[in-house]
């Protein structure tokens, strides 16, 4: 069993890039042909896509550039420059195109990013943009599992249906690890700052998050609200419970949660339209 884990870990350490939705690449292609396209327009498209965002943050935080605390896309774009971001995005389009059935996970990630932002603002937390980025990236481990272990993925999906368990439990059964740990490995090898790697690693286990528990809690709640809303497809067929640690950490109440859910539901209509536009 241990072999499988270390083998997967090695694969992840060697991973330099991951596939992206063709629609995202096309949109960026169109923007880059237009000389006048602004940083903001590009940032909006980039920050809808977890894989592209992770790649850009990796580059900004890598020793080649050496900016070790960049945790938002807009800051990464300021430092790297539009040209670098464009080339990086476009270079991913050529060989690696994500399959159509990944759209569900893509939508889930986008929506959790958006929901994390809404929750962070509602609670008047600092670093809302960082929290939104963490939400966007929280399931990056699933992208890797789906890409690098496609056989295992089939077994995982079967286990979820047949045994009626959560995806992480199924991943543990099949791979002896789960997408949170896989995401943690990737965060480390891609130089992502703690602000992002902690929520990625512990969004299913808030109590283990020490330094950035507030951020992790927001992502945890956002993930569950989006799962409950039925938006996108995270892979889970059941909605998990909100963990007490997250509830306490954010000092939530029933009323507050109800308001958040309502704000998020409203925003999801916009997110759906954006997603359809990307896929068009």
């Amino acid at each position, binding site marked *: 069993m241990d072999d499988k884990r270390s083998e997967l870990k090695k694969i992840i350490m060697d991973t330099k890039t991951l596939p992206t939705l063709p629609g995202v690449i096309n949109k960026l292609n169109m923007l880059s042909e237009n000389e006048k396209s602004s940083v903001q327009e590009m940032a909006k498209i980039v920050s809808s896509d977890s894989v592209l965002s992770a790649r850009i943050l990796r580059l900004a935080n890598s020793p080649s550039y050496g*900016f070790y605390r960049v945790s938002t896309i807009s800051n990464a774009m300021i430092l790297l420059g*539009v040209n670098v971001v464009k080339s990086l995005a476009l270079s991913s389009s050529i060989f690696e195109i994500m399959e159509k059935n990944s759209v569900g996970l893509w939508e889930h990630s986008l929506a959790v990013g958006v929901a994390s932002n809404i929750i962070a603002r509602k609670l008047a937390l600092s670093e809302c943009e960082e929290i939104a980025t963490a939400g966007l990236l929280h399931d990056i481990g699933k992208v890797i599992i789906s890409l690098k272990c496609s056989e295992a993925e089939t077994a995982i999906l079967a286990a979820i249906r047949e045994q009626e368990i959560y995806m992480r439990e199924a991943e543990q059964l099949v791979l002896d690890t789960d997408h949170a740990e896989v995401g943690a490995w990737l965060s480390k090898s891609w130089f992502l700052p703690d602000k992002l790697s902690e929520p990625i690693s512990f969004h299913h286990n808030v109590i283990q998050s020490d330094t950035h528990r507030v951020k992790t809690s927001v992502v945890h709640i956002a993930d569950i609200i989006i799962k409950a809303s039925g938006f996108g497809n995270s892979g889970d067929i059941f909605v998990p419970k909100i963990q007490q640690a997250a509830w306490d950490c954010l000092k939530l109440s029933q009323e507050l949660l109800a308001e958040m859910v309502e704000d998020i539901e409203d925003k999801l209509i916009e997110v759906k339209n954006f997603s359809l536009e990307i896929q068009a």
Partner: protein
Amino acid sequence: MAQSVRISLVSSDDELSTRIQLRLQSRDYQATITSCLDSVVGNFYSDPPDLLIIDLSENPAACIAIINTLRSDSFFSVIPIIGLVGSAECSLLQWDDCPLDDFVHLPLNFDELFCRISLSLSRLKRIFDNNPLTRLPGNTSIQRAIEDAIGKDLAVCYVDINHFKPYNDIYGFSHGDEVIRMLSRIMFNAVRDSGGGFCGHIGGDDFVCMVPLAQAESVCRTIIAHFDRIVLDLYDEETKLQGYYDGTNRKGEKEQIPLLSISVAVVPMDSPKIRHYAKVAEVAAEMKKLAKESKGSCYVMDSRKA
């Protein structure tokens, strides 16, 4: 040398590139191959090599376009590029449009290639006045650029960081260096996105950029907005909220040190009083004094007519 030199090979001729790769590896170079031209720039940016070898025999126009793209960002322009060209094509190349550092004829003489590689790497150490930290051009290039600009519709902007010394003292040199590199990227990208110009690093926390006069104010505003934003990543929550930290000032007294900000002095080069390089620096110093009087980041442009 602790780490071996990393060489990136670009060629659509798989047999040739594999052969070169083997020979390079036998000499303790690390060599990676890119055979698809579309991914060269992306690969280069995401993992910049120490030296690039590009085969121009198959698709010279596309390769030259790639070389020009790589050269256009000063951050990468120091990386040597060696072209592989057939002897017949060689005389047809317009060297001004094809900014290679060196070339080797095809069919390849490997001994020559190895010499060219060593030469390119050693030349790097010798001729560059680029600042090693930011890789922006240094004082010789700055002086030349400013002298060329005198009398033209251009503006020279002198940028420096306020309260940089106490930041360095408290947070350490490596963090200080990071701030310097951040400012250099912010300036470089702002100038580039405005349509182009010149960026140089005088030394320490002093920078210069030059853009068309009509763009000067908007470039200054972009640089200031981006710096003020990025700087927030450098402090913890508490410091950000209160807007200062405790430190020692230049006189050695305890003081509340404000967060980092920048001052920009803008000198229009079309003014009749600007006749030589020293005068530019003198006017800039006056403007800088004014800029430093305000709290936080700001720019001051010399608009006096005489």
